Structures are given as structure tokens and as C-alpha cells.
């Protein structure tokens, strides 16, 4: 048995799935952050800076989802949280116009001398740098951004 007998971390994929559906409006992004950081903190295997990374990545994804709807109406953004032993996954879905992620730069071009002119386009590079995996699934019907953090198993004492 693991030392942490008290199962704070949910046990299975489906069971552990939390869903948050918010109006596609800027004032709700902070709620998505709050939910993600609260869920991440209850997993005792994540360091604070990893929680901050995930929180920022999810926030960027929600911001993009909301901006995809501009001008905003009654649209919704849906966030799913899934816990597994060795990872956690968050996806953020919208039904905006979609986009072609392959046209975006893979990595932030930190050495670009034109950087000071970039007031936008920082969100996706941040997401890519902050979490272990980001996947964009986008079509005419909308976009789903899946973000994954791997959580290396903590070997319990006495095993």
C-alpha cells in the first residue's frame, strides 16, 4: 500500500473528470484559473511552480477561446479536468471559427529583434513552454486545446 493511504487523488479517468462550463466572457477566466489551481493543489505530487504553469496555460487557452467568439454573445467555453496516476489533462473547448495551429510558431522566438513589436501572439508560445504537451484540435466547428502535465510517480516509502 502507498504511504498516502488517504486517496486525495481521484482513482480513475471518468470518476475524476471535472467539468466547468462558463460564459465566453473575460470575467470568467479567473474562475477557470481558480478551479484548476484548486484541483491541482489537491494532488499532492505537484510542486507550486508547476501548478502556476498549468494555471497560466489554461488561462491562455480560455482567453483564446473567448476571443475566438468576438464579438461575444451567449457562447460558452467548456473546461475538462482529468486526473490520472501519472498525468493530468485539461482541455478547453470552444465552438468558435477554429484556426490552423500549424501556421503558428512552434516556440517563442526569444532572439527575434522585432520582439518589442509583438503585443500579441504570446499566448500559444507560452502554453507550449509551460506544460509538457499541448495539442490543438481545430475545425470549422471549434477548437479544443488539450494540455498535459506528466506527474512522475512518487515512490512511496516501504515499497
Amino acid at each position, binding site marked *: 500500500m502507498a504511504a498516502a493511504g488517504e486517496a486525495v487523488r481521484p482513482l480513475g479517468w471518468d470518476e475524476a473528470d471535472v467539468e466547468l462550463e462558463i460564459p465566453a466572457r473575460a470575467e470568467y*477566466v479567473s474562475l477557470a484559473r481558480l478551479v484548476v489551481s484548486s484541483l491541482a493543489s489537491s494532488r499532492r505530487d505537484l510542486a507550486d511552480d508547476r501548478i502556476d504553469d498549468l494555471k*497560466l496555460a489554461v488561462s*491562455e487557452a480560455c482567453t483564446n477561446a473567448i476571443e475566438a467568439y468576438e464579438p461575444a454573445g451567449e457562447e460558452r467555453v467548456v473546461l475538462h479536468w482529468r486526473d490520472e496516476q501519472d498525468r493530468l489533462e485539461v482541455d478547453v473547448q470552444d465552438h468558435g471559427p477554429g484556426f490552423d495551429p500549424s501556421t503558428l510558431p512552434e516556440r517563442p522566438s526569444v532572439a527575434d529583434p522585432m520582439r518589442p513589436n509583438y*503585443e*500579441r501572439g504570446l499566448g500559444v508560445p507560452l502554453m507550449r*513552454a509551460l506544460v509538457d504537451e499541448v495539442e490543438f484540435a481545430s475545425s470549422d466547428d471549434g477548437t479544443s486545446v488539450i494540455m498535459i502535465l506528466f506527474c512522475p510517480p512518487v515512490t512511496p516509502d516501504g515499497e
Partner: protein
Amino acid sequence: MDLGFEVDQRGSYTVLAVRGEVDVYTAPRLRERLIELVSQGSHQVVVDLEGVDFLDSTGLGVLVGGLKRLRSHDGDMILVCTQPRILKVFEITGLTKVFSIHDTVESATAG
């Protein structure tokens, strides 16, 4: 969610201390504040981020926009930031090369 501001004049520097979370919802207020300062003639602006709990790409964009605006007036923007989680965002985006970032308001206004 509130964003708090405090403005303080230190010699030729105007220090704007920001408190709270800077995101897509609140960043417009930061942008307005910066535009206001520039239009009031403050061209050497220190933005103190020590009270900021969260800063996203929208916030970065507003700071970059402010810097450009100040430079077009032969001014400059200096940041004060020691929090690792905030610094990290500047590092990932390469903006540590664009902004001069100081540890204290004293050092930022010493120039």
C-alpha cells in the same frame, strides 16, 4: 477581480505600482492607466509588479504596448519584479531582453 494601482512621483520617474491579477479581463485597465500617464507627460515610467499575483500574455502585450508608446516619446519603461513566477513569463517570451527589470523601485529610479 480587482486590479489596484498606486502612482508615485520619484524625481523624473513616475512609479506605477500594480496590485492583483493582470489578465484578459483586467489588462484593459492597466492599458488605460499607462496611456493616461503618458498623456499627462510621464515619459519615464517604472511599473512595479511586486504586488501582481498573476500576469498573462494579455498583460505582457499591454506592457509591450506601453513601452512602445513611451519610446515614441523618447521615454522608457522600467519594470520592478523579483517574483520567480512572474519573471518566468518574461523569460519564456524573450521579454527579459526587451525590458530592463530591476529588483527594487530604488534601483529602478536610481538611473
